[in-house]
């Protein structure tokens, strides 16, 4: 619980810093797409993505990750299919959990609130059907 609060505060601080320094929304799907498809246009998206990895490593020193379950064929199929849908859907819907769920809601954007309600709802429906007991 404490880790969730501290982690959430850090995520918020990162979003605020990106806005105050560069005037950019911390929407990771959009930033990742820029880094992937238009890397020469500007350098900052690539460095933000690299920073995510560095922060991830640092965080593992604070919160030791749980043991990773053995990956069966079923899991690999779900992860691959999920990846395709997440990659395509976040681009079509102009954002993900960070851009819509955190930054958009903080801007009181109706679009982002609608998107967040829809993807959390669909995520719950899908996970409960597929992973529920």
């Amino acid at each position: 619980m404490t880790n969730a609060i501290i982690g959430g505060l850090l995520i918020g601080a990162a979003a605020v810093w990106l806005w105050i320094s560069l005037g950019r929304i911390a929407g990771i799907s959009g930033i990742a797409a820029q880094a992937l498809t238009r890397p020469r246009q500007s350098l900052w998206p690539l460095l933000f993505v690299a920073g995510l990895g560095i922060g991830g490593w640092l965080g593992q020193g604070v919160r030791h990750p749980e043991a990773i379950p053995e990956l069966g064929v079923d899991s690999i199929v779900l992860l691959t299919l999920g990846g395709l849908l997440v990659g395509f859907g976040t681009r079509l819907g102009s954002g993900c959990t960070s851009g819509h769920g955190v930054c958009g809601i903080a801007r009181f954007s109706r679009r982002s609130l609608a998107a967040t309600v829809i993807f959390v709802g669909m995520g719950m429906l899908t996970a409960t059907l597929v992973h529920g007991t």
Partner: protein
Amino acid sequence: MMGPVSALLAGVIFGLGLSISGMADPTIVLAFLTLGPGWNASLLVVMAAAVTVTTIGYRLAGRRPAPLLDSEFHAPARRDIDQRLVIGAVVFGVGWGLAGYCPGPAIVGALTLDPRALAFLPGFVVGMIAFEAVPKPSARQPEQA
């Protein structure tokens, strides 16, 4: 040069937050998305804390005419809830519920060599590239939210 360094710093703090909060672990995310016994509210707590800080920070920053390292704020301009937004959110939600990964945690996981994120990554990249082939609805590129 200050801009990219600033973005790197934002990425580090964001990645640290995802990692410490447990959101880089799809098991914890799926425990939130899967309703029933063993339900885990972590994701809700993380989102609430993040939204609170961001809401306050955006309000304070709003008093400035421009960001520190650019000439203007790049706020998304669109206000309408259109078909693309809704369909995109549905598709994303289904994928999120299947895999337990959204883009941030997937990138953190892949860069820290979590095999689950590495299995997720190829599909994620292909999905993003596939979108580039979708015709744009109008001359105006949709803004990222």
